[in-house]
C-alpha cells in the first residue's frame, strides 16, 4: 500500500480509536507499584504491558538507576563516537556474556536497525522482508531501498517460498537478507528459527537479520531471547533486540557473529555516531538487569511468566474464547473481526477494570481486528481469570449487539467455522429485526425499468438498458476475467418505498491496477507465465466500467442507516459465498466524517479515488459561445492545440456499425490499453464493442485524418471515443488512440473537443469526462469531482507487496490513487 494512503488511513483509524476511548490514554496515578493503573478514574489491571517479567519494579534495578543519576547526573551528553560513560562498557561486557557473542548497545531498537541495516546491506544484495516483520525493520530497509537495493515481501513464515526466492535471487545478488521478528507482536507467533538455521547452512549467500524484541529476557539461557535461546549465533546472522520490553530499562542491542562486524557498525552505523546516548539512569538500570540475567533469578522469572501464560491459555480455552496466539507467548489475540466490535469489548472491559489493546490495521487486515493483550509475571491467576471471565461475558453480548456471528469471525480468521451459511441467516435476522425488506436479483431484467431509472438512471451509464448491455457483454466469454457476476440490491421499507438501491459486480481485478507502470511492467512479465498472479476476486459497488454515484439512498428515511447495515451484511454474505478477497464501496462523497467512521466501524478503510472530471454547466449554443466561456489560459490552449489543428481532421459520429468496422475501433482501444500500464486493467472483450455498436444509447466519436494528411495505404480512424447517451448526461467511457499521430496532430485533444461539441450540440448540459488526464480535461471546462472509496481486504499481503515493489519513481498520482478505479 502506498505511503500516503497508509498515513491517511492510520491517522483516521487512530483518531477513531482515540475518540472511542481506547487509545492515546493517560494514566492518572502519581505512582505505580505493580500492574494496576488508573484510567478515567477507574482502577484497571494493565493487560497491555510488554514488560513481561515485571523487572521495572525490582528494587535492585530501581536503586541502580538512582545511583547512576547520583553519579553521572541525568544525562551524559556526548556522542558515543567520542566518549561513553562507564556503564556502556560494563553493560556491553555483560551482554556479550549473556548472548555469548559480540554485542553493542543502541539507544533504541529502531536506531539499532537504522545503524545496522544500511551498513550491512549493499545494493548488490537483496532483502526479503517477512510480511509481518516489525515496522521499525521496514523503516530501516526503506533506506537501502532508496539506494536501489532490491527489496521484496514474503508471505508470513513461508519457508518453502523463502527457499525458492533464495535460489532465484542468489543468481543475481551477492547476499540475500531475510528480515523477520523472533516473536511477532500481534499474534505472538514465532519465526521458525531451526529452519532458517538450516537454510543458512545450506546457502552461504543467505543471511538472517532478526528483531527479537519480544523474545528478549522471556526465553533462553540467561534470557538471551527466543531466537538465540540455547543456540550459538550463526556466522550469517545478526540479531537486534530491545531493552524496552521485558528487560525493562529502555534501549536496545545488536548482536553479531564477529567482533569485526560489531566494530564496523559501531564505527559507521549512523545513529551510533550522531544519535544521543542512553541516559545514565537507564544504563545503570540496564547493568543491574544484565546482572539478573546472568544469575539464576532469571530462570525463576521466566518460569513464573510461563506459568501465567499456561494459566491464561487454559482459561481462554475453558471460557471458549477464540485465541489466535501461540501457546508459549505472552502475547494473546482474541479474534473479533470488525473494529466496532473490538472497540466495544475493550471499552466494556475497561469499565470492568481491565485495560487491553486493540489489534487493528495496518498491523492486521482490518477485518481481522482483534483484542490483543499481554500477560506479565506480575499478573495473578485471580486477575487473569477475572479478566477472561469478563471478556467471556461481554463477547457474545457485543457480538449480538452488532449482529456479528461467531461463524463470520471464524471465517474472517480462517478458523474452522462452527456453522455454514450463518451469514445468510444473519441477513434474514437483520431483515426480521428491522422494518426493511431486501430484494436481491441476478439480472436487471427482473427489475422494473422505470423504477430503476427513476432512482439510478441518471447517475452514469448504468441505466436499465446500460446494465443490460453490460450483463450481455460480460457473460459467456472464454476468458475468466471477462465474465462478471451482477447482483442488484433493492431495500424497501414496509410501505414498499425504496430506501436503498444499488448494483454490485464480482469480477477479477489486477492488484496493481493503479500502481506505477514500472511495477505493473514487472508484474506483467510474471503474468506471462502465471496469468492469475497478483489478481483478486473483487466485489464492488457498481462495475469496473461504470462511474458515478451507484448507491441511491433515501437520506430522509429514518431507516437509511439500517439499509446500509443490511447492504454491508449482504455484501459480506456474498463475499463468503464466493470466497471473494476484496470489497470495494466507491464513488461516495468525500469529507463525510460520519460516513468515514461508520465504514471503519464496519471494517472498511477509506481510500482515495482518482479525480473525476465533469462538465456540469455546458449551456451550449455554439462553438463561439463555448469558447468565450473558457478561461484565459484555456482559450490560449484551445487556439494553440485545437483550432490550429482542426483542418487536419474529419470527425464523424458513428453508430450501428458492423463487426468489421467495429474491429477498427477495438484495435484503437487495445492500442491505448497496451500503452497504459499506469492504469493496468484487463482487456475488455470485443463482445462489448459489438453490443455497443448496435445499441441506440451509445455512439462513437470517430476522428480520421483528411486524405491529404494521411499517407497510409489503408485509411483508418486515428482516435475514437465510445460515448453513452443518457437521459441527462453524456458520458465519455472508453478511448482509443493511434499514438503515431498524437504527437504531431494532438489527436487526443481534438477528440476531447469533439466529445464536448457533440454533447453540446445534441442538447446535453452535463458531460462526464471520466478519470485520468485531468489537466487536459479541465482545459475544456471540466471540473474535478472529489469522491472517495472504502475497501476491505481479507489479506494485506498483496497490498503491501505492491508497496514494496513500488519504486522511488512512483508519482504522486500513482501513490495517491489506489485501486478503486473503473476501467
Amino acid at each position, binding site marked *: 500500500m502506498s505511503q500516503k494512503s497508509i498515513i491517511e488511513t492510520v491517522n483516521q483509524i487512530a483518531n477513531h480509536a482515540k475518540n472511542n476511548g481506547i487509545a492515546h490514554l493517560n494514566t492518572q496515578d502519581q505512582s505505580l507499584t505493580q500492574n494496576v493503573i488508573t484510567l478515567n478514574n477507574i482502577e484497571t489491571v494493565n493487560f497491555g504491558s510488554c514488560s513481561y517479567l515485571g523487572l521495572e519494579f525490582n528494587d535492585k534495578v530501581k536503586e541502580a538507576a538512582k545511583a547512576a543519576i547520583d553519579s553521572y547526573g541525568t544525562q551524559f551528553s556526548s556522542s558515543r563516537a567520542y566518549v561513553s560513560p562507564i556503564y556502556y562498557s560494563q553493560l556491553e561486557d555483560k551482554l556479550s556474556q549473556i548472548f555469548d557473542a559480540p554485542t553493542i548497545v543502541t539507544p533504541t531498537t529502531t536506531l539499532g536497525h537504522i545503524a545496522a541495516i544500511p551498513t550491512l546491506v549493499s545494493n548488490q544484495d537483496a532483502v526479503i522482508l517477512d510480511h509481518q516483520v516489525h515496522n521499525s525493520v521496514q523503516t530501516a530497509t526503506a533506506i537501502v531501498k532508496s539506494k536501489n537495493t532490491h527489496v521484496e515481501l514474503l508471505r508470513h513464515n513461508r519457508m518453502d517460498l523463502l527457499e525458492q526466492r533464495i535460489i532465484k535471487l542468489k543468481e543475481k545478488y551477492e547476499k540475500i537478507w531475510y528480515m523477520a521478528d523472533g516473536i511477532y507482536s500481534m499474534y505472538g507467533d514465532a519465526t521458525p528459527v531451526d529452519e532458517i538455521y538450516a537454510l543458512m547452512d545450506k546457502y552461504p549467500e543467505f543471511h538472517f537479520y532478526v528483531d527479537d524484541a519480544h523474545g528478549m529476557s522471556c526465553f533462553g539461557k540467561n534470557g538471551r531471547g527466543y531466537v538465540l535461546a540455547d543456540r550459538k549465533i550463526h556466522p550469517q546472522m545478526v540479531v537486534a533486540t530491545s531493552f524496552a520490553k521485558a528487560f525493562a530499562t529502555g534501549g536496545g542491542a545488536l548482536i553479531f557473529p564477529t567482533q569485526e562486524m560489531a566494530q564496523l557498525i559501531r564505527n559507521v552505523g549512523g545513529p551510533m555516531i550522531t544519535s544521543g546516548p542512553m541516559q545514565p539512569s537507564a544504563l545503570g538500570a540496564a547493568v543491574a538487569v544484565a546482572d539478573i540475567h546472568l544469575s539464576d533469578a532469571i530462570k525463576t522469572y521466566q*518460569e*513464573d511468566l510461563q*506459568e501465567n501464560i*499456561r*494459566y491464561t491459555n*487454559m*482459561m481462554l480455552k*475453558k*471460557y471458549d474464547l477464540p485465541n489466535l496466539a501461540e501457546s508459549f507467548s505472552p502475547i494473546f489475540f482474541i479474534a473479533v473481526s470488525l473494529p466496532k466490535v473490538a472497540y466495544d469489548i475493550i471499552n466494556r472491559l475497561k469499565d470492568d477494570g481491565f485495560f487491553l489493546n486493540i489489534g487493528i490495521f495496518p498491523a492486521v487486515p482490518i477485518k481481522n481486528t482483534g483484542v490483543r493483550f499481554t500477560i506479565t509475571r506480575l499478573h*495473578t*491467576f*485471580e486477575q487473569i*481469570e477475572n479478566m477472561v*471471565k469478563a471478556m467471556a461475558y461481554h463477547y457474545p453480548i457485543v457480538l449480538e449487539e452488532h449482529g456479528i456471528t461467531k461463524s463470520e469471525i471464524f471465517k474472517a480468521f480462517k478458523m474452522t467455522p462452527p456453522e455454514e451459511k450463518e451469514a445468510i441467516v444473519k441477513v434474514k435476522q437483520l431483515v426480521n429485526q428491522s422494518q426493511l425488506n431486501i430484494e436481491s436479483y441476478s439480472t436487471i431484467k427482473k427489475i422494473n425499468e422505470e423504477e430503476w431509472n427513476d432512482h439510478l438512471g441518471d447517475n452514469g451509464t448504468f441505466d436499465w438498458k446500460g446494465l443490460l448491455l453490460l450483463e450481455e457483454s460480460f457473460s459467456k466469454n472464454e476468458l475468466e476475467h471477462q465474465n462478471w457476476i451482477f447482483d442488484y440490491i433493492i431495500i424497501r421499507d414496509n410501505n414498499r418505498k425504496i430506501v436503498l438501491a444499488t448494483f454490485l459486480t464480482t469480477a477479477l481485478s489486477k492488484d496493481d491496477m493503479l500502481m506505477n507502470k514500472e511495477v505493473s511492467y514487472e508484474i506483467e512479465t510474471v503474468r506471462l507465465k502465471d496469468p492469475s498472479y497478483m489478481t483478486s476476486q473483487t466485489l464492488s459497488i457498481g462495475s469496473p466500467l461504470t462511474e458515478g454515484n451507484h448507491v441511491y439512498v433515501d437520506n430522509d428515511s429514518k431507516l437509511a442507516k439500517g439499509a446500509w447495515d443490511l447492504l454491508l451484511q449482504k455484501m459480506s454474505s456474498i463475499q463468503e459465498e464466493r470466497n471473494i478477497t476484496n470489497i470495494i464501496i466507491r464513488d461516495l462523497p468525500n469529507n463525510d466524517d460520519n460516513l468515514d467512521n461508520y465504514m471503519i466501524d464496519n471494517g472498511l478503510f477509506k481510500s482515495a479515488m482518482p479525480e473525476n472530471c465533469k462538465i456540469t454547466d455546458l449551456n451550449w449554443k455554439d462553438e463561439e459561445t463555448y469558447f468565450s466561456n473558457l478561461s484565459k489560459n484555456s482559450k490560449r490552449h484551445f487556439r494553440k492545440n485545437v483550432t490550429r489543428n482542426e483542418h487536419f481532421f474529419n470527425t464523424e459520429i458513428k453508430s450501428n456499425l458492423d463487426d468489421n468496422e467495429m474491429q477498427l475501433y477495438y484495435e484503437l482501444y487495445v492500442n491505448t490499453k497496451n500503452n497504459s500500464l499506469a492504469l493496468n486493467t484487463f482487456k475488455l472483450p470485443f463482445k462489448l464493442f459489438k453490443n455497443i455498436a448496435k445499441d441506440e444509447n451509445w455512439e462513437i466519436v470517430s476522428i480520421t485524418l483528411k486524405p491529404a494528411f494521411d499517407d497510409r495505404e489503408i485509411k483508418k480512424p486515428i482516435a475514437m471515443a465510445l460515448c453513452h447517451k443518457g437521459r441527462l448526461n453524456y458520458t465519455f467511457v472508453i478511448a482509443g488512440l493511434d499514438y503515431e499521430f498524437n504527437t504531431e496532430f494532438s489527436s487526443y485533444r481534438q477528440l476531447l473537443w469533439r466529445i464536448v461539441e457533440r454533447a453540446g450540440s445534441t442538447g446535453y448540459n452535463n458531460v462526464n469526462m471520466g478519470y485520468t488526464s485531468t489537466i487536459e480535461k479541465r482545459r475544456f471546462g471540466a471540473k474535478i469531482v472529489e469522491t472517495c472509496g472504502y475497501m476491505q481486504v481479507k489479506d494485506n499481503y498483496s497490498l503491501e507487496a505492491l508497496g514494496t515493489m513500488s519504486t522511488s519513481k512512483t508519482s504522486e498520482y500513482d501513490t495517491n490513487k489506489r485501486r478503486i478505479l473503473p476501467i
Partner: protein
Amino acid sequence: MILTKEEYCLFNIKSKIQLIEKDGRFITRRVCSDLYLITFYQIYGFYVETIYEMSTFKTLSADPVINIDIMQLYPPPLRQMNSIA
C-alpha cells in the same frame, strides 16, 4: 473455572499454592514430627495435600491425594466429614 487434576498438575508448586489460595477450600491440618505442617484442601473436586517445612518456611509440595486412606492420618473432623459425604 474448574481445572482437571491433570491440568492442575502441570503447574509448579508456586502456582499450585496460588490456585489453592484462589480456588481451594481448607479442610484440615496436622503436624508431622514437629517438622512439617500438612494441610488438606479440596480444590476443583479433588483433594490436595500441602507439606510445609517449618524450619525453612517453605512449602515442599502441593500435590493431589492419590490414596484416600491418607485421611486416616488426620484428626476426626475430616473422617466424620468423609463418612457424611
